[in-house]
């Protein structure tokens, strides 16, 4: 007991020493301008690092933030995730849905000053989808006519991408595909400068047509972008420069926000999140980024005991999502079905998965493994290996899940492994019966939450994205139909049915959607919540008072000692 008290005191002392006990300092003031002001440098940071700035090969969200600023597409997304023209002034779809035609704006330029023509867009697409390019998402575009021949090096060009004039690009698909446009609006096929050439090359210096251009990139440390003055939107962007600092410790990030050396902090620790959320001066300066994602438990339908659908249903009913949310209340939104509200999953009467302990016990009985909570007897007789990788939330949620499933007679044996090992174990056939799983939208379309993870075509012996190895011909058919269907109302009905099948067959037990909380200084204006892009700063402007020194003064030795002693 004494030892526990001692340890707790030591921990409190340590926390106080590092400033955990104090309320955050007051935010730095804004000048109070109502209209956007041009100029200034926005300073952002992350604990992680980016690996490539070539849109053809970049595959992580953090890199995507910078690419969104440096590379503009023919089309982009508005805040709600709808497709809007960008470098193209307009676009049209043919009646049968197999041809998209993009009409480029006048006087649009690459960062090197050369004009953007339809020919450049074709060159970019062929460069990104060439089989020698080490890109990860070429299959988003497999419906483009001639894709297979091009990928198999039977053709030198993509037959479906046709230049119809200096400013007109047509893309022909081999069948209607409702996912084409959202996938095309992503960053992979965004026009790159002529210096990129026809084929991917590691030594290329990134150069695109976005509102900001590359000034310098010190790998692992800093990325500096400066305003591109020939950007097609007059008066935009507002900022002179954006500086990203990478690989920064999250404690340092907070220190720098407080001293005015960073303008936003989107990687607050959980205690710091509470500190800022509970402080009335900072509360209104916080915002959430919610990029659609699903997280839950993946159950391998080819391995016992989850080859029995009743056991899977028992798991889905035994999980108390509200309890899981309590592990990280600011970040977790309970999830009961595949489609999140922003993708059409907003029907309150939908037959979703839900926590129902009595039903879970009943499913166990039907499965042939009844469990008696009073005596603790019954249930599945063997322990189930449950791999998690060292990531704070998974390690906690695994323990909670272990407790929740023990109440229906399923015993989990938690095995902590590295992330690469976890990926290998969960994506290889016949290796793992149950594991935590997550999927973040690649592009905003309901198809992206079914085809890559729940269909038969997504099953592979190795690297299977369908880690549940779940196969249902009815679902496969619905997904194919949903992809071809161009009518929004009909698509919604199709994906609702697909969602109901997944909820009932329970290859996954849904748990939560993740969101990120961040705070910014009051002078950072124009931050927008995008349904697609995290940390969206394209239209940010700075409302800094001119006369005021924006950097907070040091505290001085006496104040520091006082802080330490408090």
């Amino acid at each position, binding site marked *: 007991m004494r030892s526990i008290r001692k340890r707790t005191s030591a921990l409190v002392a*340590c926390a106080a020493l590092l400033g955990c006990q104090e309320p955050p300092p007051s935010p730095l003031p804004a000048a109070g301008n109502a209209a956007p002001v041009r100029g200034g440098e926005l300073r952002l940071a992350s604990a992680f690092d980016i690996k490539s700035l070539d849109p053809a*090969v970049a595959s992580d969200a953090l890199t995507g933030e910078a690419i969104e600023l440096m590379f503009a597409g023919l089309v982009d997304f508005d805040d709600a995730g709808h497709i809007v023209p960008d470098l193209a002034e307009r676009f049209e779809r043919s009646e049968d849905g197999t041809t998209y035609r993009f009409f480029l704006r006048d006087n649009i330029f690459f960062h090197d000053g050369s004009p953007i023509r339809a020919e450049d867009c074709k060159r970019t697409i062929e460069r990104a989808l060439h089989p020698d390019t080490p890109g*990860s998402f*070429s299959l988003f575009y497999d419906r483009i006519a001639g894709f297979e021949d091009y990928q198999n090096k039977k053709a030198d060009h993509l037959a479906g991408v046709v230049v119809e004039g200096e400013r007109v690009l047509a893309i022909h698909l081999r069948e209607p595909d409702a996912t084409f446009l959202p996938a095309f609006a992503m960053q992979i096929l965004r026009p790159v400068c002529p210096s990129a050439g026809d084929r991917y090359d590691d030594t290329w210096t990134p150069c695109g047509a976005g509102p900001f251009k590359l000034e310098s990139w010190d*790998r692992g440390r800093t990325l500096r972008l400066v305003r591109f003055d020939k950007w097609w939107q007059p008066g935009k962007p507002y900022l002179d420069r954006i500086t990203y600092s990478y690989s920064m*410790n999250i404690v340092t990030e907070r220190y720098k926000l407080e001293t005015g050396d960073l303008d936003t902090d989107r990687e607050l620790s959980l205690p710091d999140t509470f500190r800022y959320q509970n402080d009335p001066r900072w509360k209104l300066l916080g915002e959430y980024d919610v990029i659609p994602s699903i997280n839950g438990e993946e159950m391998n339908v080819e391995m016992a005991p989850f080859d029995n659908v009743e056991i899977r249903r028992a798991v889905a009913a035994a999980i108390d999502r509200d309890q899981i949310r309590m592990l990280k209340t600011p970040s977790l939104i309970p999830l009961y079905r595949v489609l999140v509200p922003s993708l059409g999953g907003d029907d309150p009467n939908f037959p979703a998965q839900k926590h129902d302990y009595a039903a879970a016990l009943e499913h166990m009985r039907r499965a042939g493994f009844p469990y008696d909570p009073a005596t603790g007897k019954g249930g599945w007789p063997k322990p189930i290996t449950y791999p998690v990788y060292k990531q704070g939330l998974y390690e906690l949620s695994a323990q909670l899940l272990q407790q929740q499933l023990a109440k229906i007679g399923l015993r989990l044996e938690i095995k902590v492994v590295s992330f*690469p090992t976890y990926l290998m174990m969960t994506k290889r056939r016949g290796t793992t019966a149950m594991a935590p799983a997550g999927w973040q939208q690649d592009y905003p379309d309901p198809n992206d939450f079914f085809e890559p993870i729940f269909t038969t075509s997504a099953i592979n012996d*190795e690297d299977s*994205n369908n880690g549940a190895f779940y196969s249902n011909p009815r679902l496969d058919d619905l997904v194919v139909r949903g992809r071809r269907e161009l009518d929004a109302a009909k698509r919604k009905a199709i994906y609702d049915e697909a969602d109901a099948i997944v909820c009932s067959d329970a290859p996954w037990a849904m748990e939560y959607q993740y969101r990120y909380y961040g705070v910014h200084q009051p002078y950072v204006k124009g931050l927008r919540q995008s349904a697609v892009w995290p940390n969206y700063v394209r239209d940010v402007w700075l409302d800094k008072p001119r006369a005021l020194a924006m950097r907070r003064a040091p*505290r001085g030795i006496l104040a520091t000692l006082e802080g330490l002693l408090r």
Partner: protein
Amino acid sequence: MIRRALRRIVWAVLVVWATTTITFFINNVLPSDPARMVAGPQARPRDIERIRKQLGLDRPVLEQYGRFMRRLVHFGPPNPSPKDAEHGTCATLGRLHFDLGKSYQQRRPVTTILGERLPRTLMLALAAVLVQTLLGVLTGLIAAAKRNTAIDHLTVGASLVGISAPTFIIGLVLQFVLAHRLRLLPLDGFGETTSQHVAAIVLPALTLGIYGAAYYTRIVRDELIGAIKMDHVRTARAKGLPAWRVWMKHALRNALVPLVTLIGLDLGALVGGAIVTETLFRWPGLGALSVTALLDRDGPVVMGTVIISSAGIVLANLLVDFSYALLDPRVRR
């Protein structure tokens, strides 16, 4: 003497080769897929397969090893272009080429990455060793001179704290007090100019140095207490030499011999990178690089950092051996 030195050098090369080989095979039998790590967790299997082939990971491990060793040191044209398919990733010394391949994640030559990181790590290692040596010798000397007094107890106690406290705690406290509150030093980073580099290196060097200094303090104190009782020191005192001269010239010199070994070994170990300190202070050295490479299963970078680390330790050992011979004539016999 020369034969012995040559034998030591041959052994050193063998040790580096063995370490490299063992690491290569461990790296290749780990249950993970570098191609998946490159492609990202949501990549489609066909794209992953394509990337696996592009990286040559579909070839048998022995074939990969053979290619790695053949490419490691070879001859080629001087100053090849970065776009040269055969030699674009090589570091060159005239016609002598060193090639560690291309990083899976950064898609840049590993020799280029190491070339950027190694000088920064060496800078930090030297600064840290300097701090720990100066601090350790000074406090050890004071503790020995004031043996069994309150100052001695305080110094020994403080050194115990220094040895016991994890580096990241020391680093966090120093960062909080000196950088965040007092704003005397930068919180992290490397800086752009020489003066900024100097300011930026202080905190990481202090963090590493305090731990080492605590250890050195105890060693110097104990060695000095032993040395001060030796005959030649007693003679020096009897000759009427001032106390400071007796301590500094006659006692300390002997006490420093075991310290030379430690300094050499510490320097060698630090060349491999101080992982925690570099990560905490965003110091762009080999430590932070190696840990990222390990987590990402970036095989070529892992191999590069292992070769540098093992070579650093082996070289430091060699230098320690040779310096022993210089410091202590008995070893030369």
